[in-house]
Structures are given as C-alpha cells and as structure tokens.
C-alpha cells in the first residue's frame, strides 16, 4: 500500500523501490522494510504521503559524504501502535555539495529539529526552514564552514585544535 | 547539694561555659547515631558513629572559599550567628536534672525567637553567597519558615495559656512562660480532663511534625534539596564556615528534641521509679541517672521525629509543604488550642 501510494504521488521523482522482507522467530513471520530512492525534489511530497497513515515516526536522519555529493537517509516508521503492522520506510536521496540545501521537516515534525541540527553541524547540510540553528553536539565556538563528517580532508588541523 | 552549688554565680558561669561544649559533643554523637540507625534501617552498614566528628575536623582543615560575587562580611558572619544562636538556645533548656543556666532570664517567647534565628541566619548567608542555587534555597527557607512558625507559635500559646491558668500559689517563683517551670510541673498533670489530654496530644503531634521542618530534614529539607539545587543554602559554603553550619545544625537538632522532651515529657526518673528506695541513692548517682534518663528521652524523640521520618519519606515540594503547614498543621494546632481552652475554662 505504501509503495503504490508513493509511486502515484512521486511519479518520475521516484527512482527505485525495494521491499525487504525480514523473517523473524522460529515461525519465521516477517515484517517489511521499504527502501525508496528518490530525487531530492520529491522529498517533501514523499513525507507528506506518509502523513496519510497517521503521524510518521522519524527514526533516524543520517547523511554520508559520498565523495561527489552528499547522501541523506531518512528512516520513518508508519502504522505503529498496531501489532505486527508497522512498516519501516527509508528514503534516501543525493544532494550536490555545491548546494546542500533541503527543506526542513520541523514545520511538520517539530522533533526533527534535533536530527537536523546534528546533520547541519556535522555535514553542512542547510535545512530550509529550520529555526534553531545552534550547534547540538559541537561546542558553541566551533568554526563556521567546517564539518566533521565531510571526507574532503580539509581543515582537519583546525578541528583537532577545537576539540581539545 | 548540687542544686545549691549551682546557685553560686561562679559555678553557674562555669556550667554555662561547659554546657555548650557538652552539647556540641552530644549533638555530633546523636548525628552519628542518626546516620548509623538510618543506614541500618535501609540495610546498609553506615558510617561509624564518630564520623560526624571526623567530618567537622576535616571541614576545619579545609580551605574557606568566599565566592567572588558574594557579600563577604555577611557571608562570613552568618555561620557564626547561626552557631551562636544555637548555643544560646541550649542555655535556656533545662538539661535533665540541672536547671538551665539562663533560667529566669528568658522564657518560651525567647525560645521561639532563637529557634527562628538560625534558619534566618542561614537564609541570609544563602542570599549573601550570590549563587542562584543558594538564592533559591534561601527563598525556600523563608517560605518554609513562615509556614511552620504559625503552628509552632500556636503550641507555645497553648502552653502559656495552660500554665497561666494554674493558681500562682502552686510554686514559689511563678512564671507561666518559663521552661524551668514547665519542666518541674509535667503538662499532663496541669490539664484537668480528657479533653485537655486530647488537645495536648494534638499539639504534641504538631510539634513532632514541625521538628523535621525546623531542623531542615527530609521530608522538609526543601531548602537544601541536594538533587534539585545542590544543597541550596550551603551550595557556596566550604571549610570553616560550613563546619560552623554543620555544628549549629547538630546542636540545634539536639536542642529541638530536648525542647520536645521538656515541653511534653519532663517526667524525671524518680517520679516513675522509686529511686530513693534503693541504698545507693546518693546525690551524684541520682543526678547521673537522671541525666542519662534525659538523654535517653531526647534520643527517643530524635529517633522518631528525625531518623525514622527521614528514612521513610520523600522530599516534598515547597508549595506542598507550605500548604501542609498553613492548612493542616495550623488547623490542627488551633483545634488543639481550642480543646485546651475548653479544658481550662472548665467547660468539661
């Protein structure tokens, strides 16, 4: 159901979908994990689609420096509160390093602020609409424009001094 | 013979000097007992009984830090004020068979003021230390003090009323507000009927509830709440100053329990057991026995009003405490007072 809805809502913005069935226990009853690769333009639409099934729970927001560009991974879960019904939905998309901007989820999910602040300070992704732009884990006087999760090997010396 | 000796001004002064030293020792000893018993009640081994003495010794050795944004003279003076008032308080309490050194120079009302002085000194010290924790603690202390003083005052009024009703001829020196007087004439004998007894029992209950609040012990250690405001009032105190507060607390705990004993259980051992019937009834032996009996009574009150209470309750919030004292305790105390009024008035 989730996959059909997502396909309909996203259209060409959806790159590919993979449904992973994970069997558990001695009776091997399985649950589903849906891996969705999308284009960054379709991200908000995709999250809005999830809101059809109730308030989605944001599990993880993580990012990775892939060299050429940045990859963001959002893990949601829907249909919780129902025994054995829950589905994990993973959205992943690439954003260019030259313009690392994505819309913020905080208007819809205020709790996403923590996750976005972490990704912002660690990976340098700018979240459009994020109100609280202070550092989360890094010290307040961390230098601007230096991101620990980037793999560019620049400014490492400076960062080491700062973490002393 | 001993009593006659105490009439001598010189002996009296020596007694007044000696008593505080004994009281400091006893206060620390009772604190040690309290800690040990509390530990045993919670299936711990607990510190040795001489631990409070070691604590004080260590604190006196430690550096005395005065915070930068404090008011130094006030910050340093308040521990001394607290210590002085605690010791003065003690001089008004008849110590077992011995009369109080300041007997006749003050009465219950002075006692009430002296009891209020020490928390006040602590609160001022808290405000003077210029730390948010201490300020919050001081505010809480003030609120708490205003709450428990009313029931406490009501109890004192009840006593005064009761003793004032006794015909003056009953004693040579008649002072209805004097503690020595109360110690000589047990209050239970003064009331005339069951109604008065019930009234007194209510007042006793209220006094026992006020005791932990007066002594800033759980559940009323709101001003020093460790997990909330990091010892509050005492947050900035260290070294000698902290030791002074520690000592004054120990002395006051002893004094407060002694007050409860004097007010409600002044019965001497000889009035319960015919001691004179035994052959060894020389005066020193009798005095020793009476002193031990007094210390035992204080210890029992200490155990029930402080140790047992602090091991069986959680700390309550300041608004809950204020409500509890203003509403429940004040009403209870007033009801007790009413019963005593009815008793004295001969309505029953």
């Amino acid at each position, binding site marked *: 159901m989730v996959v059909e809805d997502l396909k309909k809502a996203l259209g060409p913005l959806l790159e590919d979908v993979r449904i992973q069935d994970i069997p558990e226990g001695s009776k091997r009853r399985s649950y589903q994990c849906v891996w969705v690769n999308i284009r960054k333009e379709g991200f908000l639409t995709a999250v809005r689609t999830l809101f059809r099934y109730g308030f989605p729970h944001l599990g993880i927001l993580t990012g990775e420096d892939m060299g050429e560009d940045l990859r963001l991974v959002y893990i949601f879960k829907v249909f919780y509160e129902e025994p054995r019904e829950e589905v994990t939905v993973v959205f992943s998309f690439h954003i260019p390093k030259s313009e690392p901007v994505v819309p913020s989820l905080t208007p819809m999910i205020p709790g996403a602020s923590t996750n976005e602040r972490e990704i912002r300070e660690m990976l340098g992704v700018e979240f459009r609409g994020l109100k609280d732009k202070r550092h989360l*884990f890094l010290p307040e006087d961390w230098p601007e424009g230096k991101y620990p999760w980037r793999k560019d090997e620049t400014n490492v010396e400076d960062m080491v001094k700062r973490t002393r | 013979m001993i009593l006659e000796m105490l009439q001598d001004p010189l002996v009296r002064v020596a007694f007044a000097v000696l008593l505080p030293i004994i009281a400091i020792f006893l206060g620390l000893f009772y604190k040690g007992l309290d800690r040990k018993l509390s530990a045993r009640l919670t299936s711990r081994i607990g510190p040795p009984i001489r631990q409070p003495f070691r604590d004080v010794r260590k604190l006196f050795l430690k550096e005395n830090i005065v915070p930068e944004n404090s008011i130094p003279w006030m910050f340093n003076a308040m521990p001394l004020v607290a210590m002085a008032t605690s010791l003065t308080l003690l001089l008004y309490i008849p110590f077992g068979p011995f009369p109080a050194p300041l007997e006749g120079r003050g009465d219950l009302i002075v006692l009430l003021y002296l009891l209020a002085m020490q928390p006040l000194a602590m609160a001022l010290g808290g405000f003077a230390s210029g730390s948010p924790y201490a300020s919050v603690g001081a505010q809480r202390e003030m609120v708490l003090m205003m709450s428990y003083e009313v029931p406490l005052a009501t109890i004192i009024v009840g006593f005064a009323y009761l003793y004032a009703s006794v015909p003056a001829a009953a004693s040579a020196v008649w002072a209805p507000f004097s503690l020595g007087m109360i110690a000589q004439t047990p209050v239970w004998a003064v009331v005339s009927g069951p109604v008065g007894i019930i009234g007194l029992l209510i007042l006793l209950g209220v006094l026992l509830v006020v005791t932990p609040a007066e002594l800033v012990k759980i559940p009323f250690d709101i001003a020093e709440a460790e997990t909330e405001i990091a010892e509050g009032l005492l947050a900035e105190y260290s070294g000698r100053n902290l030791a002074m507060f520690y000592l004054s607390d120990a002395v006051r705990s002893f004094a407060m329990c002694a007050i409860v004993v004097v007010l409600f259980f002044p019965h001497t051992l000889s009035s319960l057991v015919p001691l004179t019937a035994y052959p060894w009834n020389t005066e020193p032996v009798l005095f020793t026995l009476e002193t031990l009996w007094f210390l035992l009574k204080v210890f029992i009150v200490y155990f029930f009003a402080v140790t047992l209470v602090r091991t069986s309750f*959680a700390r309550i919030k300041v608004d809950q405490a204020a409500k509890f004292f203003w509403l429940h305790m004040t009403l209870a105390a007033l009801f007790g007072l009413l019963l005593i009024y009815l008793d004295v008035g001969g309505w029953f």
Partner: protein
Amino acid sequence: MTTTYTYSLPIGPIHPALKEPIRVVAEVEGERVVRADVKRGFAHRGIEFMGMKRNAIQTLYLSERICGICSISHPYAFVKAVENAIGMEAPPRAQYIRTIIAELERIHSHILWLGVIAHEMGFDPLLYWTWKGREMVMDLLEYLTGNRVNYAMYMIGGVRRDLNEKKIRAIKENMNYYRQFNQEMKDVFMSDPTYKARTRRVSLLTRKDALELCAVGPTARAAGLRMDIRQDQPYDAYADMDVRAVVPQDITGEVMGDAYDVTLVRLYEIDQSIEIIERCLEDLPPGPILAEPNLIKLLMTIKRSEGEGVGRHEAPRGEVMHYVRFDGTRDGPVAWKVKAPSYNNINIWGRVLVGAEIADIPIAVGYIDPCMCCNDRVAEVRRGGRELPYEEVRRKCREKTMRIKREVMG
C-alpha cells in the same frame, strides 16, 4: 504592580541530579521555570567514526561501550542491522537467548530507574532498597554471560554463549524472586503518598507532544501511545509471542502522561519481561547458536556484501535504531549511524519543563531515564591536540598499575 524578573539556573554539566553530563539552563521566575534550554554534547566521543574504521566484529564490541547501563541494546540493534544488510539469519535458539538477555537487562534497567527517580526526589531509602533488589539480576547476568555490564553475548548471526540446564534453572529461580519483588515494589511505589505527591502532574506530556517530538519507549507509552517495537514489528523471539505495549490506560484507565504514569509503565513492564523470559525458557528451541561459527568467514562474507540495513531494538529506555551500510570493499561498515532513545526523548525537556517548578526539574530530567553517553555518541581522546599512540597508553596503564601495586603492598 510588582515587576518580576527572571534569572537563569544552570543544571549541569555537573550537578547532583545528573549522573552524566548535560546542561539544562532553566530561566526561573521565583520557583517557576519559564523557559528551558538543553545543551548536549559533553560526552561526545566519536564512536560512530571509530566504528567506521574497524571491522564489523570490533564495531560490535564498540557498540556495547556506547552506553554504560543498557549494554545489550546497542549490540542488539547493531547485529540486527548487520544481519539485515547481509541477509543473514540467526538460528532460533540464538534468537531466544538474545531475547532472554535483553529482557533481563530491561528488568535491571527499570529497577535502576525506579531507584534513581526515588533519589531525585530525596527518597534515598527507596533507592537503597530497589538497588538491593537489582543485585540479583546483575548476579544472574554475570553468571550467564560472565560480566555484570558489557556482556559480550551477541555476535553477528547468533550469540556467543549457550544456556545449559543449570543456567536455565538459575533464571527460573530468579524470575520467581522478581515476581515477588516487583509486587512489593508496586505496593511501595503506588501507595506511598509522598511519591504520588511528587510525581502526579509532574512533567506532563500529551499524546500530541509525544508524537511531534518523536518520543519513544516508556516516555511515549506513558503519554498513551501504544508504541513498542516488540509489538509493532516483532523481531527474534518476540515474533513468536504476542507482546502488547504497556500503557497507563490499561492499568489505571486514564492517561495523564506524567512521571507517575511512567513509573506505572515501568513497573508493569518488569512483570511483562518476567513473562516473556519464562515463555522463552519454555519454548527454547534446540540447535546451534551461531549461523556462522567461523568468524573469519563471517568477516569475509561482510566484506563481499554490499547493502544497507536498519536494526531496531526496544531498549529499556525506548527504541534504539542502527543504520549500517556496507559497500563491498571493507569488512566493516562504511556508514554507521546510531540513534539512542535519549536522543529523541531529550526533545521533550524543553516542553515539559515550562511551567514546572524547580523541584520538578530533576524528576522531569530523570523521567525519561536519560543516557547521555547514548545521546552524545560521536572526538577521540586527544591530549594537547595530540592523539596518544596505543603503545603509550598501554605503558601509562602499566605504570599506574605498578604504582598502585607498590602502594598497596607497602
């Protein structure tokens, strides 16, 4: 008209109410908190980065060191994530043993919380009593796994130690003890007037707030949310039984979402854990305990596989979620992201503390059972901007040991 002014009361990074470093700055007006702000990151250790430099099995042990209390939650989520990524399945017996260990940990963690919250409100005797009761399960865990904490029990594709008859009997005896002890705890916590006075209507969390702020675990359940991974997406032995989320509406009939409800949820979850463990022991299937006993082969499988996986576990404090990605070039994760329950649950402080009293702060803070080392995972030990080489660290350790030895021996 009196003017009211506020001042800020810093709670932390070091404060008696906090067991681990974090800072809550509360704007206070008299006794009321008007605004609260949280600064995290005092225990940030860069564990995720360290994991990305090690192989998967080393990372597994590293993940065990993320948290000092729930030492099985992170390995659990990590092994699930790796198994999902490489398509491996643990044998049934291993799945059951995992569940048993996880539930034993829930028992000890919940009792720990009950003690801590009692301490926060100045009820130390209760702390001593609950922690005395907790020792039994700690001893049992030591007997089963060899350690009181950091059990080193899980392995990718199974568990490392089997349960024999003697151990099963020990667990059963222990469960009988805890059934009785939990009944006593319920009596104490639910009938004590001061406990109730300090927790009722303290740190109220509504269902809506819990959803919006992504609360998880007992915190979310206390707000009436029937959210429990063991129920929603059962894994391992939970998939063979019907676990139901423990929510206050089933216990008392109403949801307040306050600290008292959290206590109820935790107390009843201990009962639930005992039931689950006993079910597991009854149905414990025979068979091997490792899908791939040869660890070198296992690492080669990981090295050859490409893919990503999400692993989740309902830890005592809530949902632990791990994300790993393997790219087929190295035998460890190239991307590893850890999300601990406190990461989400600390979000609620900003909301529940507003309007609270100062006296409520420790309870509101303790209420979610915060675990800072879980929350701040990711900085390496450097002194003077220089990383200490391993040899030097070892030399220093030896020196210290020798020094202590000399001092002790005289």
